């Protein structure tokens, strides 16, 4: 078992004829993911890395029965791509693109609210169910099928954690990068709830950072609903307020958004909070024993 994606997930890659889209579509397929189609308006009928390309999402879904979309479309056209994916009938949209205007995402989030379409991202590494399906840009080889679920707002920091879990011999079930933007799709609580229900997942690593209050919401959820251990690290204890630290969402603008405050709240909610990012894996081993 796993969450959200598995070996029967069928993926369309939007923006497959671009450099990034093409490269990663190939990498995902090599990992074993069913990449069944690509979409680039105006390039229908061609093939990219042997994958059939369609002009529209509607066509691609009708012809291939795809249920998931992976988006590499440039930021200024990305909102349109997400709307098109949602209208085509896919149920999961994974958006890798970085730099989408916040207002565009405000519209997207409002439009998806109350529907059964789920969005992961934008500005994220994607999602991987280890040994089954890689839908994103993470390096597959660092993962090992195992017992721990991972949720993170960051990219390479997630790889760091995955490597630690692999080295500890714990491995992972599914790893989800929810992205570093202020307004996006699924949040910590959505994914925590899925991991709590997943019989294969025994513990969850949650990687947060400064800015926003998603970690505070997560803490409330951990306290009320999580029976499985949650190990958490919050990046940015040294980040000065008012400065954007790379991710558009990683900026402290008000109370409750600092790393120290988030760590404190998570700790009191019963999460295993680590202040050393090199010790996340070993802390999970402790928590599971």
């Amino acid at each position, binding site marked *: 078992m796993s969450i959200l994606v598995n070996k029967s997930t069928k993926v369309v890659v939007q923006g497959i004829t671009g450099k990034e889209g093409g490269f990663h579509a190939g990498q995902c397929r090599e990992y074993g993911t069913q990449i069944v189609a690509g979409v680039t308006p105006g390039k229908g009928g061609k093939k990219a890395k042997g994958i059939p390309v369609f002009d529209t999402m509607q066509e691609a879904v009708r012809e291939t029965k795809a249920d998931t979309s992976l988006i590499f479309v440039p930021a200024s056209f990305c909102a349109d791509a997400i709307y098109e994916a949602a209208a085509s009938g896919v149920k999961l949209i994974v958006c890798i693109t970085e730099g*989408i205007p916040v207002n565009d995402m405000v*519209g997207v989030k*409002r439009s998806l609210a109350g529907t059964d379409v789920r969005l992961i991202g934008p500005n994220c590494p994607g999602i991987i169910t280890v040994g089954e399906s890689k839908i994103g840009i993470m390096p597959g080889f660092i993962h090992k099928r195992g017992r721990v679920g991972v949720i993170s707002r960051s990219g390479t920091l997630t790889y760091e954690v995955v490597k630690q879990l692999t080295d500890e011999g714990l491995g992972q079930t599914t790893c989800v990068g929810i992205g570093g933007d202020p307004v996006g799709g699924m949040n910590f609580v959505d994914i925590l709830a899925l991991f709590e229900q997943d019989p294969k997942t025994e513990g969850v690593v949650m990687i947060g950072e400064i800015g926003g209050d998603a970690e505070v919401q997560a803490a409330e959820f951990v306290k009320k609903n999580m029976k499985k251990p949650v190990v958490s690290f919050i*990046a*940015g204890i*040294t980040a*000065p307020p008012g400065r954007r630290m790379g991710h*558009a969402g990683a900026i402290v603008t008000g109370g409750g958004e600092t790393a120290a405050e988030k760590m404190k709240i998570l700790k009191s909610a019963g999460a295993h909070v680590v202040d050393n990012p090199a*010790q996340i894996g070993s802390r999970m081993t402790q928590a599971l024993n």
Partner: protein
Amino acid sequence: MNVHEFQAKRLLAQYGVNVPKGKAVTNKDAAERWASKLDSSIYAVKAQIHAGGRGLAGGVKITKKREDVGILAKSLLGTTLITHQTGPQGQKVRRVLIEEGVAIKKELYLSLLIDRRTGWPVFVSCPEGGMDIEELAKTKPQAIHKEYIDPSSGLQAFHGRNLILNLGLHVMEPQTAKQFMALLGNLYRFFMNKDASQVEINPLVITEDHGIIALDAKVIFDDNALARHPDVLKVRDLYEEEKLEIEASKHGLNYVKLDGSIGCMVNGAGLAMATMDLIKLAGGEPANFLDVGGGASQETVKEAFKILLSDRKVKGIFVNIFGGIVRCERIAGGIISAAEEMHVRVPIVVRLQGTNAEQGRNLLNKSGLKLKATTDLWEGAQAVVELTTAPSKKRHTS
């Protein structure tokens, strides 16, 4: 992107927001010339820097004498203001805003931003203006009202009625409430059309003659949307931004200068922040945040080194790369060619992990460069702190 108060007011005025008559000037003569054109019983001379907290730092002067305006302008221009947002080095005042005064009956607080939890725009209001909203949130949280706007239907009259009740405008002259409703519409249109991420009017002033005017204005624009707003991009003030940060952004590097002594070069924003935290945990202070990005090439690594080394405070460098898409041997190559080209005066610790990490480490070890290569994150952080903070001790023991 931040803009100055005078620029924010000019942009808001284009959307029908009422602001005091004023002009930004750069010298005493211009200040006097402009003041002579104003017909007011009171004048404000306000330092124009991006950081907040100007009032407390002495950057805002009020006078009833028109002839004093020039002297006050001169007293501010060229000085360095230190506020809680500028950092200890402060920010030099290059312009002052000369404004006509306003007869104040009441000061209010009003701002508009995106609520991250809901993803909806939200008006934040408080009947007590002029103070720091973070301070108000602590001392009088019950006085702060939030009015969420469903982005699919936009601003409605009921939102305005709710805000009017919170601000106490219903007990004032009807024309005040009417002007307030118009202001809300104008702010909302501005916010959505211009891709602002924050508009803060503090204080929003009710005047003695029952009008409404934005006495101060702070506007922040969404960096991701600047490409579609050339008029906003045009007023970007590079003097307010750190020179090294501008240089870094030219090379696709994400750099934020801090005050410590250990330079960091990392791929990925989250890992870069975690690396800074780790340095602190090991007993050091990070000199910067630097994300070389997912597609780091030899060239970007070289540029990153140049930027780190041009900060004279840097006493040691920690390179932390987790190779995913980025291959470690390419990073190693970049480090070697940068070190060959530049005089590297500080110790370097390189931690490579992930794709082709072994190859990368071999290259570094064979290069003959004086650096420490490791695979362990915590070990790397401790090593760079030790090399940086105790150089004399190190010399004796080695």
